[in-house]
Structure formats: C-alpha cells, structure tokens
C-alpha cells in the first residue's frame, strides 16, 4: 500500500503535473479562474447567509432566495473544484507538506457538513419560518458558521502560496 506522500510524488512527476507547474500561462490562468470560482460560490452563498441573519432581502422568503441562488453556488463550486484539483496536481509534492493546504482541506470538509446538517434539520420546516425576519437560532448558527468557514477557506487558500515561498 503506497503512502499518501508517494502518491503525491508520483502525481507530481507526471507529464500533466509538470506541464501545468512549469507553464508560464496555464498556472496563473487556472489560478485566476479558481479565485473567480470561489467568488461565485462564496458571494452567492453569502447572500443566502445574510438573508438567514435577517440583514438583507428581508421581504423575500428564505426558500425563494435559496432556490434562486444555490444553482449558481453549485456552478461556481464545479469551477472551483475542477480548477482546484488541477492546481493541487500541479503542486502535489509541495502541497503535501504545506500546513495551509492541510488546514484548507479540513475546512472544506467542515463547510460541506454544515449545509448537510442545515438541510436535514431546520430547513425541513422552512415553511414555518420562510418569511420571518428573525429566523430560528439553528438557521442563524448555520449562516454564521458558513460565513466564518468560507472566510477561513479563502485565508488558508491564499496562505498556501505564502507558505510555499
């Protein structure tokens, strides 16, 4: 059973990884699109989170905003995920040791668990509080966790490059 480090070193030695890493254009372009993908994910989910906190679009039903916003959050996520995998392949060998990269992976798991809990619990009864300005405590807690975790992911993501320097 090869260790994770060996897999990362093998990935890093492939033609594909070397190509992205050493190309003067591809790495920056993929990175730029990755950043804009994050913007689509975090910015759209922030609108829903801020509505859950009763800060914006107070007259709109929560479920209505969720329906309008979430498809674009997922589209942004797809862009972010694909470009993120490409960047990870390019820097597999260095990222293995990068603590910012490790923290980011843990945060990404947490930020995925958060909406899972939200949708399976308090959001199931959304019709009872759809128009409320002050949403249930658990909904507000989910919104704050989401905003906080995504902010940390952006910080950790930027730090990867600082740590690698």
């Amino acid at each position: 059973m090869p260790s994770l480090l060996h897999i990362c070193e093998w990935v890093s030695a492939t033609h594909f990884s070397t190509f992205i890493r050493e190309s003067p254009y591809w790495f920056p372009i993929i990175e730029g699109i990755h950043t804009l993908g994050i913007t689509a994910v975090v910015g759209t989910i922030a609108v829903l989170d801020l509505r859950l906190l009763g800060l914006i679009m107070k007259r709109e039903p929560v479920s209505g905003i969720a329906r309008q916003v979430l498809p674009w959050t997922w589209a942004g996520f797809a862009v972010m995920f694909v470009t993120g995998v490409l960047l990870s392949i390019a820097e597999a060998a260095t990222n293995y040791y990068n603590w910012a990269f490790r923290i980011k992976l843990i945060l990404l798991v947490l930020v995925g668990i958060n909406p899972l809990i939200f949708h399976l619990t308090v959001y199931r009864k959304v019709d009872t509080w759809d128009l409320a300005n002050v949403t249930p405590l658990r909904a507000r807690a989910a919104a704050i966790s989401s905003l906080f975790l995504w902010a940390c992911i952006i910080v950790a993501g930027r730090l990867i490059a600082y740590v690698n320097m």
Partner: protein
Amino acid sequence: MFLLSICRWLAETHISIMMRDATYDFAIVEVGHLLALAVFGGAVLLVNLRFLDWRFKKQPASQVARELLPLTAGGVIVMLVSGLLLFLAGPVRYYHNPAFRLKVILFVIALFFHFILQVKTARQVSDRGRTSPWLKAGAVLSLLLWFMIGLAGRAIGYV
C-alpha cells in the same frame, strides 16, 4: 512624467514604507481584498443575472438592484481601500506593471458603468416583468469587465 513623480513621492510616505517593510501587513491587506472580492463578486453576479432575466424573475429588477446595492457598493469600497494600500507597497513598481495599468483602466470603466446601471435600475418604480435588451447587454458587459479585472488582478503578481 507627472504620474510617475506622484508614485515616487508616494513611495516615500510612511504608510508606503510600512506596507513594504512590515512582515504581515501586505498579506493581511491582500486577504481582506480577497474576502471583499468574494462578497462583491457574488452580489454582482446575482444583480447581473437578474438583469438578464435568468434569476430572481419573480422580483422586480429594481428591487434586486436596490437590495444588493449594500453588498456591491460596500464590497467595492473595501476593495478600493485595500487595493490602494497594496498599491502603496510599491507605487513605482506597479506604475510600470502592464497588468496593473490594464486593471486600473478597466476598473474605472467598470466602476462607472456598473454602478450607473445598478443605481439607475434601483431607482425605477414600475419595472415588473422582463428587462430591456439594453439592460441585458449592459449586464453582459458588466460581467465581462469584472471578469477581466479579476484576471488582470491575478496577473499583476506574475508579470
């Protein structure tokens, strides 16, 4: 060169020296710039998608433009201030950076173009139903401009 001499003068200021020499200042301001970008970018995307009649079709375009204005305007203000601080870390270096020049030009165009579009729409009273082809074209241009500004911004660090 008038602009270049301003940049040279700026490079001598205390704040510029602080941004350049302090260990974490640049990284902290840069992360703040990115966090504001995330909020701003998502809000701009949703406003323009409403203008294109793709999202929030049940709400009037004016209402969406009005309600998301705090996010787009607030985001752009934070980005402008943090961006200015980042620029102060190396005014003369950035003056010569082609990606930075392109970004500034595109930003000034997008700033006026997008916010005139959003504020004008926000002030409309009766606009139920579909948006005009002009507004749709404006939304496409706005998205295109902000997208290029994002890529140009990333390119500053590479050229």
